[in-house]
């Protein structure tokens, strides 16, 4: 990797830290229901929402009440979104005349957007109307992010409260998270994005006259639409000349902003943030990258502030960083070295020149550095947006995003869900350490007992189970729809169910969807989200009822370097042991075949 690439990486992490610290303490104020400047200006709106919906803001919920509200809300949201997709042809704001989304795809997409996954078996500009994009998909980009943070807040309250069963009010957490965190951040970000070149319009697709007309060959079809074969047995082709370029537009910027900030990642366009209208300049690329990790990183500081021990937040952040940084280096090193099969042709300078390295599927304005930082960060967080095509990465370069997702989306992870997933690993690490020294494990003054361990184990075991079973079913049923032969085709399938089960949403996008994948993926996303969120709330309820154990000489401190190493190893060992055989069949064997053809 070049000196410039190192500088870009270092600048990224430094600026991220500088922004995350103040945001973290701000968010603590929001969820501790303390007054602050925005609540003074928009308190009336918050109260109005409570009045219209009938929220009893003062009434707190126990864990079952909280879980019930969270689940019902997500089911209702999913059903409304499904209906919107199915009915979009008769709804307003559909200038391009998109037809109804087919049932299995609508099912997959609805679950995808309520679970913060944003897996897309469709191309945005060719499938969704403006209305579905902004009043359906973008709304859930906000709400599922707020829902993730709300669940996290219930867990943190479970840790800090004692001898109570109450964990806060779900509706209040949802409203405050959306109103005071996500909306102001998104609105400011939108304005910058528009200034840089993201469209924000309700006008229909524009048409431009090409400077140089182009042409392509189209297969001839008969009246029934079947291809016609010529005398030589090959399909007949006609030559079509194209003189105009249709340019899809829409309310892109407002959706782009929340898509990045809420670790959602569902692109307005098919190619997501590689599209010049979603990510026009190196400046927007840098900002969008920051937006991916901003809230997940800041939540570590929120956690530190709420448990009144900032070292706890720093320790978790350090573990998250340690999981990410070496993988980012591996990805960069592989992509910059390029593809040896191409280097044999007289291509490229075979070194570190600009525009060199594995440029297939990458944009010139981001180059190798901008693409590899994105690939590793978007999969560390459960964002899943892409600014380059992971499917075309070198085998080991493409292993990196796959691996980051396999860790269970806990290295930063989703907004809220990343930190609560990491806290499950913290409990596992504390438990393992407790076994080593023969003491009852405790975390932040709360004893960790059988019940907490059961819940943490469920959270850690469900995603790998979903990934491996779904991939096995896909392979056993013939593995249809892959875009590449051999090991790489297997990688496409593995990546698809890895991504959906862990609610990431990025893809080896060559894989095309079918009814089986739509339905299986939809189920994987649903269980991957809520079968983790419910144990979190159950654990929160149990922790809240416990007494606080005073710290003693036998207490394992959870803010030390030793503990950070312990936590990082726990995450890696669980990830590696579960997935190594699958990785060996996919990217690793492809890498070996590439270097020894």
């Amino acid at each position: 990797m070049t000196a410039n690439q190192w500088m870009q990486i270092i600048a990224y992490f430094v600026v991220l830290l500088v922004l995350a610290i103040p945001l973290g303490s701000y968010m603590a104020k929001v969820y501790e229901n303390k007054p602050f400047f925005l609540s003074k200006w928009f308190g009336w709106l918050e109260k109005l929402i409570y009045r219209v919906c009938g929220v009893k803001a003062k009434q707190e919920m126990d864990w079952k009440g909280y879980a019930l509200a969270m689940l019902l809300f997500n089911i209702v949201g999913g059903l409304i979104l499904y209906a919107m997709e199915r009915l979009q042809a008769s709804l307003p704001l559909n200038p391009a005349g998109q037809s109804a989304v087919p049932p299995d795809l609508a099912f997959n997409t609805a679950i995808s957007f309520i679970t913060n996954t944003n897996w897309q078996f469709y191309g945005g500009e060719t499938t969704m109307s403006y209305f579905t994009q902004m009043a359906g998909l973008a709304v859930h980009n906000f709400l599922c992010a707020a829902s993730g943070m709300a669940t996290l807040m219930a867990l943190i309250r479970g840790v800090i409260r004692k001898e109570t069963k109450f964990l806060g009010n779900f509706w209040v957490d949802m409203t405050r998270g959306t109103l005071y965190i996500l909306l102001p951040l998104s609105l400011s970000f939108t304005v910058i994005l528009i200034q840089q070149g993201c469209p924000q319009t309700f006008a229909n697709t524009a048409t431009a006259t090409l400077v140089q007309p182009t042409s392509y060959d189209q297969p001839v079809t008969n009246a029934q639409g079947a291809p016609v074969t010529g005398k030589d047995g090959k399909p007949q082709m006609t030559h079509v000349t194209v003189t105009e370029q249709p340019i899809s537009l829409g309310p892109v910027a407002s959706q782009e902003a929340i898509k990045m900030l809420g670790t959602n990642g569902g692109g307005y366009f098919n190619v997501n943030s590689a599209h010049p209208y979603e990510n026009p300049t190196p400046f927007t690329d840098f900002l969008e990258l920051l937006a991916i990790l901003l809230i997940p990183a800041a939540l570590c500081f929120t956690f530190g502030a709420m448990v009144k021990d900032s070292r706890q937040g720093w320790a978790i952040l350090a573990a998250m960083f340690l999981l990410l940084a070496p993988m980012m280096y591996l990805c960069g090193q592989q992509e910059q070295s390029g593809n040896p099969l191409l280097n044999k042709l007289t291509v490229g300078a075979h070194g570190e020149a600009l525009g060199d390295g594995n440029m297939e599927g990458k944009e010139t304005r981001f180059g190798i550095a901008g693409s590899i930082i994105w690939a590793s960060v978007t999969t560390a967080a459960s964002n899943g947006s892409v600014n380059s095509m992971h499917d075309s990465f070198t085998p080991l370069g493409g292993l990196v995003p796959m691996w980051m997702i396999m860790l269970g989306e806990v290295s930063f992870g989703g907004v809220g869900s990343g930190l609560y997933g990491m806290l499950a690993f913290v409990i596992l690490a504390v438990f393992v350490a407790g076994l080593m020294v023969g003491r009852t494990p405790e975390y932040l003054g709360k004893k960790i007992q059988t019940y907490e361990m059961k819940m943490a184990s469920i959270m850690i075991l469900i995603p790998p189970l979903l990934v491996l079973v779904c991939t096995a079913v896909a392979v056993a049923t013939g593995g249809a729809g892959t875009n590449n032969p051999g090991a790489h085709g297997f990688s496409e399938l593995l990546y698809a169910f890895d991504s959906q089960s862990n609610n990431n949403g990025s893809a080896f996008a060559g894989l095309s969807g079918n009814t089986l994948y739509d339905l299986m993926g939809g189920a994987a996303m649903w269980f991957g989200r809520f079968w983790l969120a419910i144990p979190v709330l159950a654990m929160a309820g149990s922790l809240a009822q416990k007494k606080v154990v005073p710290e003693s000489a036998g207490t394992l401190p959870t803010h030390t370097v030793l503990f950070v190493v312990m936590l990082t190893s726990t995450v890696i060992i669980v990830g590696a042991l579960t997935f190594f055989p699958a990785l060996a069949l996919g990217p690793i064997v492809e890498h070996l075949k590439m270097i020894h053809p």
Partner: protein
Amino acid sequence: MLKEIGTQLRLSILFVVVFTVLIGLIYPGISTLIGQTLFPRQAGGSLIEVNGKKVGSEIIGQPFDDAKYFWSRPSATSPYAYNAANSSGSNLGPTNPDFVNTVKGRVDALKKADPDNGAPVPMDLVTTSGSGLDPHISPAAAQYQVSRVAKVRSLSLTKVEELIAQNTDGRWLGFIGDPGVNVLKLNLALDSLK
């Protein structure tokens, strides 16, 4: 319990409706209002007009394969290259034989258009971009084509290089991202020379 479910269900429906209005309609509405007022050109897609006719967008690439133009990067959009209503990458894997052969074909086409040029072909000029709509090529890819374009158009090398420099978008703050030459703007500048 059933009563509780009923209450929460009613709340859920109202909540989704209220927030659909707030963030599904009011938020994009305000964004559009701000965008169209402050930055109407960008909000409309940064479209370029020449003599009252739309000829493209500043930030969306177009296909070029005429020797008198700078060529853009290959594009994987269908059914034709640079279809800006259907963005797409190739999603071809690095060891896919089809991919390696396609790249080989592109190398040959570039060499055929400029047989005297012995320089190695820049990587970005023979690989498809992520979006299929990349407006840029690397400075090396522009440099590779200078002599061909200058010869066909009977221009001096310095004149062409000057136009390249004028249509190069640099890094942000001098070190973020990679520099790129905007192909559509460069070719429009060449056409307007006459």
